[in-house]
């Protein structure tokens, strides 16, 4: 398996070469693979796939089976720079962070060359510590990502039941007891409205609906031709009389005593229902 292949699945944990199991103090038992061979297309994959310099570094450390807490800085730096160099040679755009990381590595390397101050046994003074912390944090995130991705996922490992439709549901019934209805009725019987609603019974002479219907029908018969609506409405009438006339016409239409007929000049006329207009009613 080429060294970059396990990266290409998009999932961090999958396809990790099984050879990594054997380690002694961060040094593998077998010989190191030819770590610095960079396959032709790998770099582009790397730069696209690697989230940043820290990840590239972590990947290098792992591929060399190094111990995060005891990084051979010089070797890692050398490899890291090789990748950067190769990337530049191919005119790949490198984010500034990659160069920043290179600077950091160089700084660590330099500090490690300095003579250790007194009480340098203290681990806290190891210049690699901060880098190790950050690499471990990233390694943890990667582990968690792999663990998350290994969980059964909807649409991949199982399918949920989509909510099944149902008929229109009866609305939640109000909390009403029969006694409430009975009580309501009793109240209405006991306390009839003091002031009944005005009821429009249309009894007065000029408003009588039935009377108006008769009049209208007579007018239509007399004209013996289809009439415009305006011709049928009483002239100079008040709003109520107009409304009653209109209602009367509608009622006559509904009872099919009158009919709407289309006029040659366009528009509609009202006509008495007979053999001639019968078809168009």
């Amino acid at each position: 398996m080429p060294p970059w292949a396990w990266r290409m699945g998009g999932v961090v944990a999958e396809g990790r070469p099984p050879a990594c199991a054997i380690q002694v103090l961060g040094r593998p038992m077998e010989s190191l693979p030819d770590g610095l061979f960079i396959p032709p297309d790998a770099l582009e994959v790397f730069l696209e796939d690697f989230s940043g310099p820290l990840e590239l570094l972590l990947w290098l450390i792992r591929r060399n089976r190094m111990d995060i807490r005891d990084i051979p800085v010089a070797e890692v730096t050398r490899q890291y720079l090789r990748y950067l160099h190769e990337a530049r040679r191919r005119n790949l755009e490198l984010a500034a962070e990659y160069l920043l990381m290179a600077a950091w590595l160089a700084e660590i390397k330099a500090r490690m060359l300095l003579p250790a101050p007194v009480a340098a046994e203290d681990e806290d003074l190891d210049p690699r510590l901060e880098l190790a912390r950050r690499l471990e944090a990233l390694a943890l995130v990667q582990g968690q990502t792999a663990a998350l991705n290994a969980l059964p996922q909807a649409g991949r490992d199982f399918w949920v039941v989509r909510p099944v439709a149902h008929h229109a549901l009866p609305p939640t019934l109000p909390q009403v007891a029969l006694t409430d209805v009975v009580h309501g009725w009793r109240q209405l019987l006991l306390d009839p409205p003091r002031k009944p609603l005005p009821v429009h019974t249309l009894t007065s002479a000029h408003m009588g609906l039935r009377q108006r219907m008769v009049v209208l029908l007579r007018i239509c018969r007399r004209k013996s031709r289809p009439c415009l609506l305006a011709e049928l409405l009483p002239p100079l009438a008040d709003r109520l009389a107009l409304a009653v006339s209109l209602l009367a016409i509608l009622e006559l239409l509904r009872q099919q005593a009158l009919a709407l007929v289309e006029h040659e000049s366009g528009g509609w006329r009202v006509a008495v229902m007979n053999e001639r207009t019968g078809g168009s009613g």
Partner: protein
Amino acid sequence: MRERLLALLLSSGEPLSSDHLATVFGDDPDFAGWEAALDALLTEGYGPLQLVFVAGGYRLRIHPCHNTLLARLHGGTPRSLSKAALETLAVIAYQQPVTRPEIEQRRGVALSAQILQQLQERGWITVAGHRETPGRPALWVTTPEFLEHFSLVSLESLPVVQTGNGGVHRDSPQDAAG
């Protein structure tokens, strides 16, 4: 085969057409007879599920016999009926068939269409026809669901409200109501 068909339908958020199902099943002999299984599902359903053909495809639906229960899950909290709605229901129950103007007259206030609609949505009242007078007003009556909800055998078993002579009001179940 029926279970496989159900698995497909249950996992799909939209109706599946015969063509779509045919594509999924292909002519794999394992899936032979899916059409027959589909027909069986259409007629028999499966537990609380019904299969219906809508919008050019097959979709599952929960049998309406579970509606009341589903309403408890999906419906809001039940509210009580407003006084206006209650009185309207009372007038319709005792005076049916009755028109809207008659209800208004009885209650002495105008009746909003909303109240009738609300009662209609509850399934308690319905229009039984129209009075043959100008305007043909709708005639409102109570429904069988109304009787059922209030555990009434028939309209005759509505409690009698007597206003008698000076206000003796008594509920006597055996007497006929107004």
